[in-house]
Structure formats: C-alpha cells, structure tokens
C-alpha cells in the first residue's frame, strides 16, 4: 500500500471530521471557520507566566544564552523575528553573523541580509583556504547598566524591575542618542514609526508564557532562554557549571544578560 497516499487520506479524513465538528452547522460557505473562543490552548513554556499575570516580576532574572558551538546558521531565527515584529526590510532586531577564519588567521565577517536567507553557500571571495567557520547570532544584550537608558533625554528607554530594557513608543522622540550609545548596535530608528526600536526578548510573548520567537524557531537549541532564579532552568545550569561562558565587549561595563557559550576571541 502506498504509505504516502494512506497518510494523506488519514489527514484528509481527520480534517474533514475536525472541520465538521468545529463548524457544527454554522454558516456554510463562509471563508472563516468559527471556533469556540479559547479553543487553542497553548501550553505554558515558561512556568508561572501566563496571560493576565503582571509582566513585571522582580523575582525573576531572565538570561539568554547563545551556543556558538551549536548554531548552524540556518537563519530561521531571523525569519521568525521578522515575522513576529513585522520588521521593515533592511532593519534587523536580531541577526546572525558569519565568521570565516582562513589559514593565515585572517578573520572575515559577513552577514548578508542579516542572515535572513541563511548561509547555504560558502564564501568564495576568500583567497586562502578556510580553517574554520562559525556563526554568531546577535540581539539585545539587556544590560544591567544600559547606556541607552542613561542617554535617553525623555525617559522613553527604561529598564523594568525584572531586567528588561524596553522602549516607550509613545514618549520616544526619535533623537537616536540611544542608537549611538548602544555598544552592540542593536537599535535603529524605525523608518515608519520614527521611534527607536530594538529586540525586546519578546516581552509580549513572555507575558503569555511563551518563549521568545527566535528561541522557538531554533532547530538545534543554540538559543536558550530562562530564569536564573529557577535552579532547574537550563540557563541556570549552563551559567553555574564549568562552561566557557562570556559576554560581548565586557570592557564597556554594561554587564549584559546575554551570554555566549563557547565564544571565540575573534568575535567583536
């Protein structure tokens, strides 16, 4: 028996049954299938956080860990991010850089379209044989001492009690001081909104108990997110076990909450 056909039939059957159940006699021919409200139960991915709870909870200390040794450079995190925030073309809230090191120890860095199209082909413009390649995803570092907050003249960029650096889009003037102050270049002035924008670690998803969109999209768990006050969490374990963990530009003194596992000294 043709397995493919059988599965297709099963799926079709199931769908018809499902649709029938759901419709239950509601308007035929309507383009919209009306399902009972709350029909979709999304399992909580971050315990204790769910729709309706206070998003600011000072008992939590969220951290983001990126595993450089795991990232395959597929760029689907960037796609998920673009979809989640409808980021305009040419602007990036998160992006993936490719580091190529040749046998003369020259470092070549590129990020065509911020990694949105993935890295399906090798770089052909490197004159020497390639010794090593790795990918470095970048996003907001959620600093404990954020320079963007310090320079904002109107208090539109702020740090919440649970450590998120966010932007008040109503108050932001678009003066772009913060864009220049950020050592990690994660900010931009939205071409349409005319206010500062940047990665929020998907604060709105957390408020629903969902993981950040890029973490959800990563097929190899190179992006990890969790609560450091939860001793069961993977990020707690990673940061408290003998792992090679570092942050970007520690000399800037911003104390990022974004950590890199297996970061290499070539990375800037």
């Amino acid at each position, binding site marked *: 028996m043709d397995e493919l056909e059988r599965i297709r039939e099963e799926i079709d059957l199931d769908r018809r049954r499902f649709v029938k159940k759901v419709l239950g006699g509601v308007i035929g021919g309507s383009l919209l*299938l009306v399902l009972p409200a709350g029909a979709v139960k*999304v399992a909580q991915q971050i315990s204790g956080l769910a729709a309706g709870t206070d998003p600011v909870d000072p008992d939590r200390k969220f951290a983001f860990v990126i595993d450089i*040794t795991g990232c395959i450079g597929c760029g689907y995190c960037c796609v998920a991010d673009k*979809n*989640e925030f409808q980021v305009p073309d040419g602007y990036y809230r998160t992006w993936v850089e490719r580091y190529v090191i040749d046998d003369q120890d020259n470092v070549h860095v590129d990020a065509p379209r911020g990694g949105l199209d993935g890295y399906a*082909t090798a770089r052909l413009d490197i004159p020497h044989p390639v010794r*090593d390649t790795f990918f470095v995803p970048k996003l907001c570092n959620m600093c404990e001492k954020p320079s963007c907050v310090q320079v904002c003249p109107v*208090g539109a960029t702020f740090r919440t009690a649970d450590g998120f650096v966010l932007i*008040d889009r109503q108050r932001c003037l678009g003066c772009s001081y913060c864009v220049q102050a950020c050592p990690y270049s994660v900010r931009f002035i939205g071409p349409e909104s005319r206010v500062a924008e940047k990665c929020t670690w998907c604060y709105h998803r957390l408020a629903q108990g969902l993981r950040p969109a890029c973490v959800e999209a990563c097929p190899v768990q190179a992006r990890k997110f969790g609560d450091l006050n939860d001793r069961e969490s993977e990020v707690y374990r990673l940061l408290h076990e003998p792992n090679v963990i570092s942050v970007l530009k520690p000399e800037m003194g911003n104390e990022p909450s974004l950590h890199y596992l297996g970061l290499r000294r070539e990375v800037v």
Partner: protein
Amino acid sequence: MQPDFKSSTHLHVIRLALTIAGVLVAGILLRQALLPAGYGTSGRYRPGAELDEANRTVRNLANDACLACHPLIRKLHLAGTHATVSCEICHGPGVDHVQDGKLAGAMPTVAGDVIGPVCLRCHGQVARLRPLDSIRMVSASDHLTGHRVRADNDCDQCHHVHAPMKWVREAREMVGLAAEPEGGRPWTN
C-alpha cells in the same frame, strides 16, 4: 579711598535670589507638565509603558498550538527526528492562520521543487560551514546521485517532511535491513 560697594538695600542679592527661585519654580512646573502622570511610581518610566509592550500581538505561535488542532501531524511530528523543528519555519507565522481561536486564513506550505532550499538551509553541507555535532548534513547532488536518483529529485519524495526518516525506516524494514542501524543508532522516524 575705596568706594563704598555696600548697598544699604541689598537689592542685588534679593534680585539674584528671586531669579534663582523663579527659575527653580519654572523648572519644577515645566517638569510637572512634561513628565507623564505617575512617572517614577514603578521606575523611571511612564507607568504602563511596559504593558504597552506586553500587549503586542503574538504572531508566531508555538508548536503546541499547531499540534492541538492537527492531531495527525502531532503523531507524526513528535515521533520523528523533526520533533524540535518549528512548524512555522515551513508554514509561516501562525497569525495568518489562526486568530483568537478562529481560522483566519490558509496556511502556506512549501512542497515539491521549492522544498529543497528549505531543507538545505539546515542540512546543506558546505565545506566547513556548520558545526558537525549539531546537525546531519548532506550535499544535495551527492546525496541524490548516491541514492541513484536524478539530481533534480525533490527531498520530500523520499523524506516525509514531518518525520523525515519514517519512510526510510519503513522501506528498510520491508527489505529486512532493520536489524543493523547505521552507527548503532536505533531507527527513528
């Protein structure tokens, strides 16, 4: 013979004090006028600014949400090696498909001759490109010719997209190869 600088009325001191007081009062009033109501109650920001951010629309769902409505895919997907792969990578953001528990539109699928580039973004083997421990890689042309098919065959002809090793495993079992999985790994879907 020094001139007497002492003014008996201290007028200049009073003028200065008044100016400073005036500037202070104006400053305080201006600050009051410019600061949003309740500023400082929860931090150095407009109260509610964090709620505005928290109320953004969630556009990508999670696999659990998709699987709640697609029980058959659930069976296939969770049993397969693609269990960790997000549905929305291949199908696009869930918000175009379901909104407030209602079906909002069709979900696009990539299949046939457009699926290759999607698979190869994760599985494509390019010299020293991806970390070897993270993912199994194939070079598209070698992989296809290695299985004695034309190089323009589509990946989903042999691999079920939701459980890529299912058909391979079943085919092997049919011809009695099930006993010895390659590299000692048990057969999966």
